[in-house]
């Protein structure tokens, strides 16, 4: 039975504007995956011996592991030997200032709306009061090409640099925390990442420091046949606060490319980390050709008392998404939050959600997940709320709403709730709906065309999550949700 929504979802399908490729000279690791590849990457990065050993240990583990198959995803077999694990834009080894950056790369980021220049604002928020600044770490294929506002951050005591630099400059800090939250043997994709991770961001906010600006990493896959394996590690020391944004795009290609990232967050006593993602990897075309396979492990450890981690994600891209940003709430009265909007269209498949592991007394978590499915896509929320036996007075509230646009798509909800302490209060609610004819009719009778009406309703549906985003990203996210906003709707 076709409904009006079938036409309506046209409004949400829009062209992938970020699908261009940049033609620059690049240097690749030899194709394929072996110990030599791992050694090559480590040598390229000039890493110390301990780091190479750490990678090799992970690689040996990975060879004994099997890819997980429990998600509601149809993943074609991946040939791990048919890809490059390292691609580096050829440029001067060290650049003295941002002006020396390859103009092609600079133009790429400009085209993406991410100016790698200090004192500039991100697109869409000019005139915001007070002016907001964002420090950007730009990762191009396997290498971080630029990090802005370094000096100013350094004055505040904040360490913000690419992880390969951090391994060289702050080996003790990295050694202490790397793999603490997501150990090498965690899961198939995290183990692969541990072996071959190329670049990513390292953030350390010292005790009592409130990071003076938003930090951001923009990931760009450019090269063909290349996997991207970034690793992000953020440590907020006692009483620190940091807000971190992550964005990503890739060119349109007919082949599938693998993206397997690991993100580790650590929040000590009274610290707070806010982590926002707008995931916009190339989703493939309407017949499901091409697109990124996005297998990501994100986990936060709320180790300290009253620590807080908030994950916000807007997932619109990738052919396949397998991603469960989680919180281990070990600290007393620690707080975990997960706000997610996942949009799937055409033949996209998303299996995403969160895990809230309550170990600390009085820990609380909130989960708000909004799934929007259109086309022939499948969109699954998969979540776990676990309360340990010693975690007294735990509270959790979970809300999972699904919106179906069209009658060829699927919306699924798979929540697990495992409770071992009677003082816990766990609530879970879920609904599934479509855009009602009444809503559409009303909006259109007020003069909106169908596209604008659908966009309005979809944005309203996702409002609770979009509100959580820093303003820079809220703008991008609303755009991504399929509105022809042209900068007018805020």
């Amino acid at each position, binding site marked *: 039975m076709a409904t009006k929504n079938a036409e309506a979802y046209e409004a949400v399908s829009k062209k992938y504007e970020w699908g261009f490729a940049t033609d620059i000279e690049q240097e690749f690791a030899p194709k394929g995956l072996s110990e030599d590849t791992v050694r090559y990457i480590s040598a390229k990065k000039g890493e110390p011996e301990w780091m190479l050993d750490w990678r090799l240990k992970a690689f040996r583990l990975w060879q004994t592991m099997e890819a997980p198959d429990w998600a509601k995803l149809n993943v074609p077999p991946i040939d791990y030997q048919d890809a490059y694990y390292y691609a580096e834009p050829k440029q001067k080894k060290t650049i003295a200032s941002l002006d020396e950056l390859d103009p092609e790369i600079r133009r790429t980021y400009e085209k993406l709306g991410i100016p790698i220049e200090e004192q500039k604002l991100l697109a869409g928020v000019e005139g915001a009061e007070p002016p907001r600044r964002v420090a950007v770490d730009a990762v191009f294929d396997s290498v971080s090409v630029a990090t802005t506002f370094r000096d100013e951050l350094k004055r505040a005591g904040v360490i913000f640099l690419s992880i390969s630099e951090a391994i060289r400059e702050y080996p003790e800090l990295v050694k202490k925390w790397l793999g603490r939250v997501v150990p090498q043997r965690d899961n198939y994709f995290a183990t692969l990442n541990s072996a071959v991770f190329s670049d990513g961001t390292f953030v350390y906010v010292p005790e009592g420091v409130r990071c003076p600006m938003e930090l951001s990493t923009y990931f760009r896959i450019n090269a063909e046949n290349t996997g991207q394996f970034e690793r992000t590690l953020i440590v907020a020391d006692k009483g620190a606060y940091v807000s971190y944004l992550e964005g990503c795009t890739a060119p349109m290609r007919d082949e599938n490319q693998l993206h397997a990232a690991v993100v580790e967050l650590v929040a000590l006593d009274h610290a707070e980390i806010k982590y926002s993602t707008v995931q916009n990897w190339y989703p493939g075309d309407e017949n499901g050709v091409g697109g990124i396979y996005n297998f990501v492990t994100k986990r936060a450890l709320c180790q300290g008392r009253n620590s807080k981690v908030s994950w916000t994600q807007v997932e619109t891209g990738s052919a396949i998404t397998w991603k469960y940003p989680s919180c281990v709430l070990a600290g007393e009265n620690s707080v975990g939050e997960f706000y997610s909007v996942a949009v799937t269209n055409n033949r996209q498949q998303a299996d995403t959600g969160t895990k809230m592991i309550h170990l600390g007394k009085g820990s609380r978590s909130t989960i708000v997940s909004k799934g929007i499915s259109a086309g022939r896509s499948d969109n699954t929320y998969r979540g776990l709320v676990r309360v340990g*036996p010693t975690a007294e007075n735990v509270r959790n509230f979970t809300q999972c709403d699904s919106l179906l646009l069209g009658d060829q798509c699927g919306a699924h909800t798979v929540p697990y*709730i495992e409770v071992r302490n009677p003082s816990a209060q766990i609530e879970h609610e879920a609904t599934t709906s479509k855009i009602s004819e009444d809503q559409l009719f009303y909006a259109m009778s007020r003069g909106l065309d169908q596209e604008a009406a659908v966009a309005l309703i979809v944005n309203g549906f996702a409002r609770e999550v979009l509100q959580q985003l820093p303003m820079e990203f809220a703008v991008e996210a609303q755009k991504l949700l399929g509105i022809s906003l042209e900068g007018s709707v805020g």
Partner: protein
Amino acid sequence: MVEALDLPTTRGENWRWADMPALQAARALRGEADLPDRLLKGAARLVFVDGQLAEHLSDVDALDITRTTLASDHPLAAHANGDAVALALAAQSVTALEVVRLTTGEGHAPLAITLAADAVLTLVETFAGAGWSNALTRFDLATGARAMRAVRVVQEAGFVSTRDEVRVGEAASFVSTALAATGAGVRFDAMLTLDGDGAFAEFGGALLTREDQRQECAVRVRHARPNGQSHQLWRAVAADRSTASLAAAVEVARDAQKTDGEQSLRGLLLQRTATVNLKPELEIFADDVKCAHGATVGELDRRALFYMESRGIPAPRAKALLTRAFVADALGRIADESVREQFEAAADAWLEQTL
């Protein structure tokens, strides 16, 4: 020594909370089984002893009993595959039936019940004895047929596993309520297909666990045709070191527009060493449906307790009353009053011993 069976492992998504070691251990148990009292007055009775139809204990003169062959690919039910008792209920007939499964060691009892158009069945199933009692029951409801079923486990030791495979036809109605309030390990496993326009299904019950027991339900309702309605209402009370797990899934096929699916899973923990697991799952492929689930775990409502105490009801009594009401939510769906009272009495007895 009983040879080891090839059983599902907890690595499988549907067996994550299953207690297969308990099932394996149950197979070595031997015990006596007495025929429990009837719950339905004047009802026909089918009695199985260790999976075999015991004609001398049964009372089925009024019924049309034949044999058939059942085959299921469910990992536990598959052990009950083969020669089965078949019961066909004629169009517009009204039947009251008790099925008793007595087990003294290991019993696999396959049973097929077919309801012709507008037939009405009131059914009470009882599991008694010791060891591993494994049931495969296939229901087929034709247009307008109605089945009202209550399942109780009185078996004190061992393991009871049931697998129901139910087809609910157009405008037919299948209502099933289960109660497990004994020392046995339990897995209530069911697959219901709403295979006709406007079909209705209710599947629920209560699991009461204590000591080191583990009980679970794993129910999947598949809406294959439009305008169907399903409710899954389960309550779990876990005491001591026990685990009660409720997994309920609703699946809505592409064509099943205007489906109304509802799940309510609630767990109550009596001690900190107990565990309740819930998994209310939705799998939706149609866009004009109403599906909602609610799931909660926790302890008794403190405000309600305070209120009752302020009205002069002692704390233990207030707790018992509230727990009773919690369980009664699920048992209240049993249509036959005397059966419902017996089930409630069994739950009360359990609560009295445990609280």
